[in-house]
């Protein structure tokens, strides 16, 4: 039996848990906590260690989706989570530009831990305030070759598309000879 993992990261409240929940065959095993600090009461619970979801591929292969905690004070978990990952997805809350800078810094941190392929998901595209993906690209200063995909984490189809795009990129890097 082989286990492989893809990490879903991004700032606080970006929709990481929701993303995993949409495709996982098990209820997301979550380490969510009720939020107590007044300043953080945008929502009632947050991920404190990690969430994970599972997709069984066949008798010998299982894909785990690991969601990182979004809050900075849990970032000691990131390095552990990133170890051995196939690739990662950076979720961005397109409707909250105050999180863009952090999204970029998370992206850079993960890329430094492991230079694996990644894609960026412009999440919450269904919100009125959402920035369009291409505006987000400029805001996050992403290179044109970085995949940036519109996403609504609660809709399974967009989640599938994003996972597939990441896997295509992973396939490409395997095929590209490295020197």
């Amino acid at each position, binding site marked *: 039996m*082989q286990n*492989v993992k893809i990490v879903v990261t991004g700032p606080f409240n970006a929709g990481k848990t929701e993303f995993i929940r949409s*495709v996982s065959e098990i209820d997301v095993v979550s380490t969510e906590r009720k939020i107590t600090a007044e300043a953080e009461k945008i929502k009632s619970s947050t991920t404190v260690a990690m969430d994970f979801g599972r*997709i*069984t*591929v*066949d008798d010998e*292969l299982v*894909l785990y989706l690991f969601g990182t905690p979004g809050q900075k004070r849990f970032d000691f978990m990131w*390095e552990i989570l990133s*170890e*051995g990952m*196939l690739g990662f997805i950076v979720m961005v809350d397109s*409707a909250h*530009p*105050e*999180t*863009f*800078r952090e999204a970029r810094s998370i992206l850079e941190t993960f890329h*430094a*831990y*492991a*230079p*694996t392929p990644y894609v960026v998901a412009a999440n919450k*595209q269904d919100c*009125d*305030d*959402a*920035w*369009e993906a*291409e*505006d987000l690209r*400029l*805001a996050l200063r992403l290179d044109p070759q970085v995949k940036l995909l519109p996403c609504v984490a609660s809709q*399974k189809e967009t989640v*599938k598309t994003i*996972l*597939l795009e990441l*896997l*295509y990129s*992973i*396939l490409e890097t*395997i*095929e590209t000879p490295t020197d």
Partner: protein
Amino acid sequence: MALRGNLRDFSFTQILNLINLAQKTGLLTVEGPGEMAHVYFRDGKLALALIGREENDLSAILARSRKITANQAKVIRERTRSMTDKEVGLLLINAGYLSQKDVLDSLQLYSIEVIRRLFTWVEGIFQFDQSSAVPSGKIPVRVDLENLIVEGSRQLREWEQLQEEIPSLDMALKFTDRPGTNLRHLNLNLEEWRVVRYVNPKNSMRQIAQVTHMNDLEIRRIAYALLQAGIVDIVRPDGKPPVMPPPRPLPPVNKEEHKSLVQRLINRIRSL
């Protein structure tokens, strides 16, 4: 869809850059503390910028650039009360008072001046509306944004560079143990002295900023200057040097196996 946010998170220079790169047309409204600006763009070029409750009809703008006197402006305004800028401009040009170039230069100068003022806004809500065009009575100009962006990014770059050099204010400063450095002989300015008094591995930069009433930019600027001068080092608040985790290489795998694994994942996700 919306292009909305706070300048704190996305600076005015970054917005200009985005508008320039995406060659956007529309109206950018910026609501700063106590003042409001309206900036129109056409195909990624500056077309018109207006600020606050300031008099910004053509005669006022011409007076600002000294093409006419304040008195002349007053007279013109009184006589052309119901006319648009376009009509007033034509009137002045046809009457031989001014050339078309005078008019356009003044308008351009004014819009650029407004942009320069907007660079200093670090706080405020902005919103870009693609459906608004320059009001029909106004005379649009056409100014490339590149030079303005360069100007604005000088300020921004300093801020970003400082954030990169000093990523966390939770770190502390410690005097370097360079022999022969005598603080008394250093040529520090007053602000630097205020910080130097608190340099101690026990004090985080954030704490120093608090007691010296400095904002994030100011404390970083000074810490950076002290670092560059070799007077201090950055240390963890407990005195140990910061450790960066080394990047971990992926375990080597057989290429064909790896490919088949990813292909199986792809097939499975497709079938979800």
